[in-house]
């Protein structure tokens, strides 16, 4: 594919090195690097969990290690892998997509990244400083109080998450302002690429949700360090207060983790279908509906707490309702493919995989929103299956799709398609083998967060299957790692626009110059690059 040079390439600016950079693209790459590294760490922790669970009454690891492993696995994957990956892509792509030279506050942007990273380092430092947190990623009180968790693990959890969260909040402010104020001429908010739309909604979710976590962490800190009683029933406090605050953050957090990935595949599916997105306004608008609703569903994580039938029914209703705007997105993606000319490239495969797997996770989510069903399977492996279907089957596949799609823009080289397809199919097989059986395990009574289970339960065989699946997943990730390293060194040179794409980031060089565009672009439609390449096929604006 020959690139269409819209602008003359300018000599790259002077590099200042990764430590001092304030360039949004380099910071984006740093974020992505952080995400990939922590994903590998979190994945290795997951392999430890699976190894221990492969057979009943196994003594491979001791219970304490197991508890630390799943706690750190959850926190790592969610806050140190997925969020940085998504924020990284947003950092890299948003200014390019809206024709801006950088984000609104480049220095703050660097600060955000370093805070996020330092938060992660603080969390991991706990391993050296007397023990990692072992109370689960949502660290329920009173288990997390000093009286039951006397070690320093929870303190590192508090500090690490607070610092990491500060970085994420500052980053969200930056991106919000960037999207609101830095769009190039003609880039009306109704024309921005859907990835930008969903990033905007995500940042607003971050701004509304993360402070609740910070507040909860501060209270837990007061309890642990200053002898407070917020969550201490013995001192008159209430354990459920923590749960309300945590899930007021935690539920929006899950949409924070999926909306940007949905934005990515909303870019990828149209390009490889050769068609504009179907129902742009509905795909964008449904994100707003999701964001709105997601602040009103948190107690579906607390159905078994005993809030009351009425409360449970209300939160069940709002939770179910959220399936409606989510469905709208799914249907529009499929409608985008219908009538197109689908190129089954690796990014497209992963995007299709996203839809296929996310639907399963979404449907199990809706079943969990049905109170009596949740009362049966809450805190069991059914929930573990659900969360991995949406987070791995959804978000991670979306991130891989985005990775294969934008890697050439970021590096100038394509990832290998052959290895990519192998990576996809190995992931697909390994993933389903790992997590599909967990639905059954949960339904027949296997609780989550158990370091082992009695042989008499009969849960052995399905657990073994799940562990084998995880091993296949690990192989798939190694294939990906090989592909990354090989393509970075000697991948096919990409050119500016290897996919015959639609949006502005493909209109500049690969990788883009420091200032992104030598002159400020001006756009007049939703597919500016496509319009330039095919004036006769312009979108009606």
């Amino acid at each position: 594919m020959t690139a269409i040079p819209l602008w003359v390439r300018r000599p790259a600016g002077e590099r200042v090195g990764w430590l001092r950079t304030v360039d949004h693209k380099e910071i984006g790459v740093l974020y992505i690097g952080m995400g990939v590294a922590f994903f590998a760490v979190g994945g290795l922790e997951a392999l430890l969990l699976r190894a221990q669970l492969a057979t009943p009454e196994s003594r491979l690891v001791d219970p304490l290690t197991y508890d630390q492993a799943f706690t750190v696995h959850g926190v790592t994957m969610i806050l140190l892998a997925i969020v940085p990956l998504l924020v990284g892509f947003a950092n890299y792509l948003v200014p390019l997509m809206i024709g801006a030279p950088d984000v609104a506050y480049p220095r703050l942007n660097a600060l955000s990244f370093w805070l996020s990273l330092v938060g992660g380092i603080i969390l991991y430092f706990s391993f050296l400083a007397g023990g990692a947190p072992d109370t689960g990623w949502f660290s329920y009180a009173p288990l997390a109080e000093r009286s039951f968790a006397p070690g320093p693990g929870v303190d590192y959890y508090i500090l690490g998450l607070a610092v990491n969260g500060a970085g994420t909040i500052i980053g969200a402010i930056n991106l919000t302002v960037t999207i609101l104020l830095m769009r190039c001429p003609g880039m009306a908010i109704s024309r921005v690429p859907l990835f930008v739309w969903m990033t905007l909604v995500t940042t607003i979710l971050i701004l509304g949700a993360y402070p609740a976590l910070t507040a909860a962490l501060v209270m837990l800190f007061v309890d642990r360090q200053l002898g407070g009683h917020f969550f201490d029933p013995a001192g008159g406090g209430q354990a459920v207060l923590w749960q309300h605050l945590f899930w007021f953050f935690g539920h929006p957090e899950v949409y924070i983790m999926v909306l940007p990935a949905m934005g990515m595949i909303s870019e990828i599916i149209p390009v490889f279908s050769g068609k504009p997105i179907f129902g742009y306004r509905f795909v964008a608008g449904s994100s707003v509906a999701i964001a709105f609703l997601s602040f009103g569903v948190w107690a579906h994580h607390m159905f078994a707490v005993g809030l009351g039938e009425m409360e449970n029914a209300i939160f069940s209703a709002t939770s179910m309702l959220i399936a409606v705007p989510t469905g709208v997105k799914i249907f529009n993606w499929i409608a985008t493919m219908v009538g197109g000319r689908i190129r089954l490239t690796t990014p497209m495969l992963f995007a299709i995989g996203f839809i296929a797997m996310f639907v399963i996770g979404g449907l199990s989510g809706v079943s969990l929103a049905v109170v009596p069903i949740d009362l049966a399977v809450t805190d069991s492996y059914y929930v573990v299956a659900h969360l991995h279907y949406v987070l791995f089957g959804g978000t991670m596949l979306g991130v891989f799709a985005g990775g294969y799609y934008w890697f050439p823009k970021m590096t100038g080289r394509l990832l290998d398609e052959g290895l990519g397809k192998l990576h996809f199919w190995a992931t697909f097989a390994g993933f389903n083998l790992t997590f599909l059986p967990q639905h059954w395990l949960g339904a027949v009574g296997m609780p989550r967060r158990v370091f082992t289970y009695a042989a008499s339960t009969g849960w052995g065989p399905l657990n073994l299957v799940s562990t084998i699946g995880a091993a296949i997943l690990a192989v798939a990730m190694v294939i990906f790692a090989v592909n990354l390293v090989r393509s970075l060194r000697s991948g096919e040179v990409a050119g500016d626009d290897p996919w015959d794409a639609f949006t502005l980031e493909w209109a500049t060089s690969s990788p883009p110059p420091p200032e992104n565009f030598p002159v400020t672009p001006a756009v007049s439609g939703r597919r500016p690059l496509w319009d330039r390449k095919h004036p006769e096929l312009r979108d009606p604006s």
Partner: protein
Amino acid sequence: MSETGFIPGERIPPALSVSLARSAKIGQDRTLLGVAVFIASESVFFLAIVLAYLAYRDAGLVTAKANLDVPRTAIFSVALFSSSATTALAARRASRGWLVATIALGTVFLVGQGSEYARLLASGIGPGRELFGTTFFTLTGLHGLHVLVGLVALFALLAAHIRRPSALRPVAFEAVGLYWHFVDAVWVVVFSVVYLGTLL
């Protein structure tokens, strides 16, 4: 000039440059908008803490009634509230004098809070003493911390203004002022909930 050899905002779209020149409207200036978005996010933070306070209010009410000095705190609160006016004047005139006045009033408030803390601690009421102590010190302490941050920002502004008034964009005053108003507004809520709440 940033290290990459590229001045952020230098090549921002013309339409935006014009509006930047007009400046000062929250919806158009990035600094102001940034502060506004930050404040929105902070509001959620304080909301959570205030709700926690309210959730435990009844359990701590007796202690609160017996120990909080409402009239005295009301006087110090007036200092903080009036600093909202001085900061507005400082912003309108880019005035050093009003800035100093704001800093002075903010400091008076903090001193007041400090003496209140000292009194409570002396009578054995700390963050570990019953739910009242826990919630009271957390809520007012976090607010005090924000006042402190505001004071630091005001100081920085003052220092910058003394060094080179011309290098300071007028919006800097407004941005710091916006934050200070917020800190003030939070105190309206905290004072009502914590102090006036004991009179009910």
